[in-house]
């Protein structure tokens, strides 16, 4: 579904991503793991068109999307859950979810999808009228995920969903990510928590200083001695 070839990202003269290639198949969850500063978030930002790529191509179902304006991606079926949650703090939960459906006009479908998000995250339903900024970090992450689902994406980009959250919250978020994946969503997961990411995904890529150094089935990567030594703290 998503085919990335030779993607490069540079900040000034510094290359953050040095020509990486990877792909995500339809209905698959792929993890992109690596240490801080390996270039994971830069990769995702370039995919979401929040920054310009310095080179390479990004194809979605064969169509080049690396030059599209960021707001056009939603129409192409891509939804991003930004790093650090990125909810609208002074809007209620309900308004946040409605913003997620900004590009849609099918009122009944939107209402049905809001109900669907509420079944995934019952916590959000309890607080539907509360301002997003007054919720805990975990709840905001739930909301950001729910809001991304509101655009009915075909490909979900998750940027560090576990960042800064209590372990119990991380478990909850990942449970929902698994549920969403089981419903057939294609997911690209960028995550520092390598163990969790590999346990959740089918395939994985390991990034190191802007390059992909390892790739394969997540289970194999989990068993790989190099990965275990570098990322799983063994």
């Amino acid at each position: 579904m998503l085919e990335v070839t030779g993607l490069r990202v540079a900040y000034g003269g510094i290359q953050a991503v040095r020509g990486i290639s990877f792909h995500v198949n339809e209905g698959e969850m792929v993890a992109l793991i690596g240490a801080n500063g390996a270039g994971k978030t830069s990769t995702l930002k370039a995919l979401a068109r929040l920054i310009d790529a310095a080179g390479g191509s990004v194809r979605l179902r064969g169509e080049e999307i690396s030059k599209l304006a960021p707001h056009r991606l939603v129409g192409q079926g891509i939804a991003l859950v930004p790093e650090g949650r990125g909810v609208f703090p002074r809007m209620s939960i309900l308004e946040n979810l409605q913003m997620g459906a900004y590009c849609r006009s099918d009122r009944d479908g939107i209402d049905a999808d809001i109900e669907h998000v509420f079944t995934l995250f019952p916590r959000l339903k309890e607080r539907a009228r509360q301002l997003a900024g007054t919720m805990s970090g975990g709840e905001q992450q739930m909301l950001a995920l729910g809001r991304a689902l509101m655009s009915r994406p075909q490909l979900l980009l998750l940027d560090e969903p576990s960042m800064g959250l209590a372990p119990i919250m991380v478990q909850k978020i990942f449970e929902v990510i698994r549920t969403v994946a089981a419903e057939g969503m294609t997911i690209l997961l960028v995550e520092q928590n390598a163990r969790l990411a590999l346990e959740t995904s089918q395939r994985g890529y390991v990034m190191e200083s802007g390059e992909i150094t390892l790739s394969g089935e997540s289970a194999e990567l989990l068993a790989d001695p190099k990965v275990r030594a570098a990322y799983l703290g063994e």
Partner: protein
Amino acid sequence: MGLAELRRDRRAAIAATLAIGIVLAVAPFVIGATAGSTWLRIVDFALLYIMLALGLNIVVGFAGLLDMGYIAFYGVGAYLYALLASPQFGLHWPLWAILPAGAALAGLFGVILGAPTLRLRGDYLAIVTLGFGEIIRIFLNNLNAPVNITNGPQGISGIDPIRIGGVSLAKPIEVLGFTLPSLHAYYYLFLALALAIVFVSIRLENSRIGRAWVAIREDEIAAKACGINTRNVKLLAFAMGATFGGVAGGLFAGFQAFVSPESFSLMESVMVLCMVVLGGMGNIPGVILGGVLLTLLPELFRHGAGPVQQALFGKVVLDPEALRMLLFGLALIAVMLYRPAGLWPSTRRRRELRGNSA
């Protein structure tokens, strides 16, 4: 809410609207009769400032873009009126042609000034817009050479008064044997346009674009991720806000019959911004309140401080002008300390500062 309650609510709303309508309709006669024409003139100005504050509210309050050069659009509107309806070029266009032209030109300037600042936020945006505002004022000040367009620092005088259907508002108008003084006529014209701007603001606030503005104010990246074309939506905020400023500027020029660059100084931008912030950013009634208070209170001091001191101490101890700025500063500090969201904040801001659910 039950049906009976709803009906009662509606009846209350109609009653309130009627009451406000009557107060607004008779206000110029009451003020004119009790406080005199000086105060009626100040009320007319208050209406102009309300239009300005509502325009800036779209940029600052709704879209969260801190614009410190807003008065430039007021200047653009005013100078366009002055150039198209004065002996300066011998042109005497009618109001119905100038006002839309002024609105459109100011809107265009909004886009021109907005476009280079799209990547900026907060303090940086404030500094750049401040610079733009000053550039326009300095242009107006210096466009008397090599070709004299704006008449430089002397300004343009002898501007045509506003005419509606051939009737000049500068002279008392006879309607069915009843005389409507000039200031009263201007009051009704300004009131009508201010109400139109209030109406447009309310419609914008509750529109798809209004929600996009709020989303950008709250989190620009998230707004992009929701599929909002942040560039166009921000430019639209600049353009809409500037349009309101352009309309108010045109009215100002016709009302004053004189414009000069010093009416569009940075201090004026700051004043309009204070109206928005003090009243309650993003909340239309709050912004109107801010506009009224910040026009009337300084005038009260200007006219009241001298006589009061004379009565109390037998002489004027503090220069009323200095006292006015002192009290204005104190009032600003007090409001920011005790009502940080403004005197009449939007429910959104109020809820945020209380930090609980509605």
